């Protein structure tokens, strides 16, 4: 039991630490290395407006694996369909991704 508590508190600490770090980062002006962070920040700042395909890509495509640098255009539809099943993405996200990856 004690070991779980240690593990859990470790995890919670890590999570809190990271959230703190990313919150701090977002307050700073954007530098090249924080570009990803600031694009998400602006995404959630503009609630009403739709996310762009790039933002959907940034937010999702590195969750499970290294994101592909390119996909042959004629296979983009097939692969994004596959990822929609795997990652349980919405139809809307799929459409935005397709516009971004195969404009």
């Amino acid at each position, binding site marked *: 039991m004690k070991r779980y508590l240690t593990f859990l508190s470790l995890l919670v600490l890590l999570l809190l630490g*990271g959230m703190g770090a990313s919150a701090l980062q977002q307050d700073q002006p954007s530098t090249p290395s924080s570009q990803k962070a600031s694009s998400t920040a602006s995404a959630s700042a503009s609630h009403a407006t739709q996310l762009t395909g790039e933002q959907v890509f940034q937010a999702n495509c590195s969750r499970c694996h*290294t994101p592909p640098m390119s996909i042959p255009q004629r*296979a983009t539809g097939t692969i994004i*369909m596959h990822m929609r099943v795997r990652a349980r993405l919405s139809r809307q996200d799929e459409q935005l991704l397709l516009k971004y990856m195969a404009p």
Partner: protein
Amino acid sequence: MNAQDADDSGNHAGYVPVVTGAVGYVHNVNAGVTTLEPQINPVLLVPFGSHLLLESRTEFTGFFQRENQTTGPFTGKVFKSVDYAQLDWLANSHLIATVGKYSLPFGIYSERLEPIWIKNIQDAPIDVNIGLRTSGAGDGFMLRGVATEQPGYTVQYSAYFSARSNINQLQAARTAGGDASIYLTHPRLELGGSYQRFLQDRQINNASAYVSWQPPSIPLDLKAQYDYTRTGNGYWLETAYNFDKLQIPSLLRRFQTVGRMQQFFALNGGGNGVPAINTQRFDFGLNYYIHDDFRVISSYGRSFSAQQDANIWNVGFTYRFVMPLWPERKK
């Protein structure tokens, strides 16, 4: 903004059939015993329009060891297994219906991390069989999709029922279960849980809780999973750090370091695919991305149990390929 169907216009994405998957080679030394593991795992994707997808993955894995474990010539054989062969109907955002043989959505390892080109450390977690008996796959149907999508978060679900099958390449157990997770878009943090009831022979409850987190400001990937079953419980926690954002020469930016720790506690004598004794393990990995789809992998691990402490080494490479089967055919 609720998840809803947008219209299909405005892109030039093609829907041709694709053969994808991975090839790889792992040279494994576990407690002094060497195993050579060449692998090829093709995935076939055949779309019918933009709402129906046929997908399957077959694994060909070779296991070659010295005749007397540490001496003699290498002998062994190649094993073939169909991981999944399923038809998906992508009805709308809220519903994707799958029939056939599918990977069980239990925790994040089996469905997401198991492909050799994805996993950061090649050896599966100690408690990997929890929730994945008997074959890691289910035969039957599964429903999955987005329960709700809001600007700051998304909630996903899956639910399945699998029938027992002993048919060659379609082995599965009678089980029912589900998985749900919430993904917080802004911190890129996903929290989820899975539940399964094993409905064959002796009925058993299995449960899992997991975290997956890629903080936007640091190139870190943190994943952890806790699993519980009647015969044992345990967790693994893995962090991977990519050098790609560091101010160092570009060739060095392709490195990735990985650390993983695991603890497993046997209950009721263990069994059912999990060890009979408590086991702990630490792994440290160093991977080098020659390209986004091609990497050289290496890892060192040490496992501790009352029976044996062992060193485990892995070196090798993985390559992910994507081959569209024929030229442009717009849907």
